[in-house]
């Protein structure tokens, strides 16, 4: 009987997923600081829904439930989706999105390891298409809000959609910088004027840029732990920088700066947490570079020329489709073979 090798060095799938969750913590903490504790409710809701849905489908598929719940992949999907949604989204939006991500995008394709698309992004895209208004209603960062909601107020708003007496919805929400930029550019405002409004910070959107920085920090931890390789984050961020930089250079009045694109929307979350999903991503180093560069190009194109303010979800899903082809055409040279 041969079961060699008798040794194993790898962290288990659970440990890998746990480290991804750990790497998200700085981002979540900053999120709470910027937007209040409402996001924690979304995270908890998504986690609970994901685990229950995963367990139910595993049961139906007659697969072992506990080992697959323990792998932590469902929680990662849930967290990524919750972090991508507006923080005060109604509870059912979070639940529906998570259900779609886990049941349709993941389990119906065969569960862990078999889903061709990033489940969190499928869940996000499904919500964006179905409930576009809710999906673009972002609360203002606490420091900019005319009325700041307490945690209880946020709780009530998420579950009952009720605000404290005398507070209109407009008082707590505002357009996101990406959204605002888009509408103002349509109104032929120059960028210099647009970015003078208070919702813009020194890098991207005020407040949200800090969250993006915290994601970057978590991403560096993942790189250091060798949970992800450098190829995807670097190629994605570099492509986004290069494209936005080129456009910005030639027409600074019409196109936002590279740092704005890097630190707005879900760019940082995508670079280190979403595009780096191994299951739906490519495996060879060259394919990773092409894949991430493709996401970068598509994101920029959708942001600048498309109908949606942010294009991460669609860019990732579109590039997910190319993965089998990318892998097939980027096979590295095998030792002792001609290329």
């Amino acid at each position, binding site marked *: *009987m*041969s*079961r*060699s*090798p*008798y*040794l*194993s*060095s*790898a*962290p*288990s*799938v659970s*440990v*890998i997923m746990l480290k991804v969750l750990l790497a998200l913590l700085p981002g979540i903490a900053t999120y709470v600081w910027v937007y209040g504790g409402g996001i924690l409710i979304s995270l908890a809701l998504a986690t609970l829904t994901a685990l229950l849905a995963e367990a139910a489908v595993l049961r139906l598929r007659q697969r072992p439930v506990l*080992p697959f719940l323990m*792998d932590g*992949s469902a929680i990662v999907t849930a967290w990524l989706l919750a972090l991508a949604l507006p923080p005060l989204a109604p509870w059912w939006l979070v639940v529906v999105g998570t259900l779609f991500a886990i049941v349709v995008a993941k389990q119906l394709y065969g*569960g*862990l*390891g*078999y889903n061709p698309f990033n489940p969190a992004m499928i869940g996000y895209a499904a919500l964006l298409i179905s409930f576009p208004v809710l999906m673009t209603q972002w609360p203002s960062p606490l420091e900019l809000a005319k009325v700041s909601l307490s945690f209880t107020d946020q709780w009530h708003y998420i579950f009952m959609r009720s605000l404290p007496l005398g507070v209109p919805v407009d008082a707590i929400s505002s357009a996101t910088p990406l959204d605002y930029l888009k509408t103002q550019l349509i109104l032929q405002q120059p960028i210099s004027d647009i970015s003078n409004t208070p919702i813009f910070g020194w890098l991207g959107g005020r407040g949200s840029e800090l969250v993006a920085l915290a994601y970057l920090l978590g991403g560096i931890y993942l790189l250091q732990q060798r949970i992800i390789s450098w190829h995807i984050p670097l190629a994605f961020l570099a492509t986004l920088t290069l494209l936005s930089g080129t456009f910005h250079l030639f027409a600074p009045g019409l196109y936002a700066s590279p740092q704005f694109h890097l630190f707005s929307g879900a760019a940082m979350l995508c670079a280190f947490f979403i595009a780096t999903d*191994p*299951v739906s*991503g490519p*495996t*060879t180093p060259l394919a990773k570079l092409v894949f991430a560069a493709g996401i970068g190009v598509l994101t920029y194109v959708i942001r600048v020329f498309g109908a949606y303010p942010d294009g991460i979800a669609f860019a990732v899903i579109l590039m997910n489709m190319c993965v089998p082809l990318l*892998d097939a055409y980027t*096979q*590295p*040279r*095998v*030792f*002792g*073979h001609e290329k």
Partner: protein
Amino acid sequence: MNALVNLVKLFKFNGGVHPPQHKQASTTQPIRVLQATLPLVLPLRQHVGNIPHLRVQVGERVLKGQLLAEAEGGISAAIHAPTSGIITAIQDALIPHPSGLPDRCLTLQPDGLDEWTVLTPIDWQHMEARAVVASLRQSGIVGLGGAAFPTHIKLRSDGRSGIHTLVINAAECEPYITCDDMVMRERAADLLRGIAITQHLLGAERCLIGIEDNKPEAAAALRAACDAADSSAQVIVVPTIYPSGDARRLIHVLTGLEIPSHQRSVDVGVQCFNVATVLAIYRYMRFGEPALSRIVTVTGNVARPGNFEVPLGMPVSALLEAAGGVLEDTSEFIMGGPMMGFSLPSPEVPVTKATNCIIASTPRLFPPAAPAMPCIRCARCAEACPVSLQPQELYWFAKSDNFDKARDYKLFDCIECGCCSYVCPSNIPLVQYYRYAKSEIIAQDRAKEAANLARERNDFRLMRIEREKQERALKHAQKAAGAKAEAGKTEPSKAESGVQYAGDAAVNVAASPASAQAEAVKKAAIAAAIERAKAQKAAQAAQNTAAVNPAVAAEMAAIDARRAEAAALAAKINKDDVAEAAAATHAADQHSTINGVSAQVASSVTSNSKEPS
């Protein structure tokens, strides 16, 4: 020169892993020599290749070093008596093999006298290299790194282009194993003598000794011996990374040469030997001592881990006893290292020429693998693969029985080193999947070849039947034409009918030149095929006999003579069936090629799987 620095540029291969070494425990004591007391069980197949031909009978008394079984055919190795005693049995017994299946073994009851047979040293300096290599066929020496490939074949030049570099594999990259390390520390001088002989036989200009940097004592000993012997061999310290001891990897690291996938190292002018093998060559040349013992590391959960010089055939249990006995919790015994070794079916199996290490394992030492999870395509395996394969794709293809794709993705370049499984977060037994796919593909190829052969035979049979029919028709027509011509002469009155017959004959005659021509072409083709088959056979015979001693050659000549006689007799009995005989020879040739190919594939699989150690 004792410092661990190199003056040469080293090359890198993709990936590799750094498993914990655990080499300390077994290197604290010198090599201990064990005497044979218990019955020795000697498997006839301890090497890659044919089973050797028995030269003794049950009940016979044999002397230490006496030939028990002789190498048979092209790839084979002899077996000798490791001590004096009586052959008590020749039967199937459990052998150390992953299959756990029994195989033919000799049992030798030692008489305790350890009485030597007459040994004849080889005067290699004054003999023709060819003759020296031929004599090695009698030595029973095989690759002692674990691959157990007969050494004399690797030294044969076979008219190949010159070998410029001899690489000595002293990497010993598998964890736990230290037998080569200890040999280098203790027997460096003899080792260098062995290197000199090997280099001389190969005609190699230079010798590179590749040793991992986790063996500073051995490297220092080798360098000191090199200085003392004024040897030109270069001791090159390479970084410790598994599997640098795989021959193709080591040759690449040392020389930068990348051996093409379908070629062997000799095709790029390099030949590679393990240190212990070279030492065995020295002992055979200097003292005439054949392969009787080997150094085995005994480690893991034993009281006194160490290295032992063990007579071949000694039960593993006796070896464990010599290492102070196994400790509590021992769950199984692993032969080889933890990366490529396998669990022994029983501790009673004998030590063979391929036994480099025995590890007493406990669940604490090597925890049972956690249940396998689905592949998450993290590509850690691809990063670790020393052959730059895509293990995650190969796994997918093997799992779905998509063998054509697996072959496209170079499954057969996999050396089964286990790096991929070692780093897999999903605990997938990848190597087992690859072995499964390889064996399935080999089986399918064999079935395909067999089907092709059957079809060819059938085609030939149909052709022969058709030819015979035509021949009969021709004969018939000729006879009829002759008869009619005769009839025309004698009975001119029947002119009308005669004319008609003549007309028929004319038609026949008109038709026959074309068929006769076709016949001639066919016959020529058959004759050519017979000639080709004969030439092929002659060439094969020449190859096979190149390396045999006069006695065997004489025997073979006698067999050939008998065969020729039988063939002549057969020809006399049925001259018409020569073509068929030729077809049969052709078929037999075809068959033997298939066997040859499959044996080669099988041996390359096994040798691949054993190389890194």
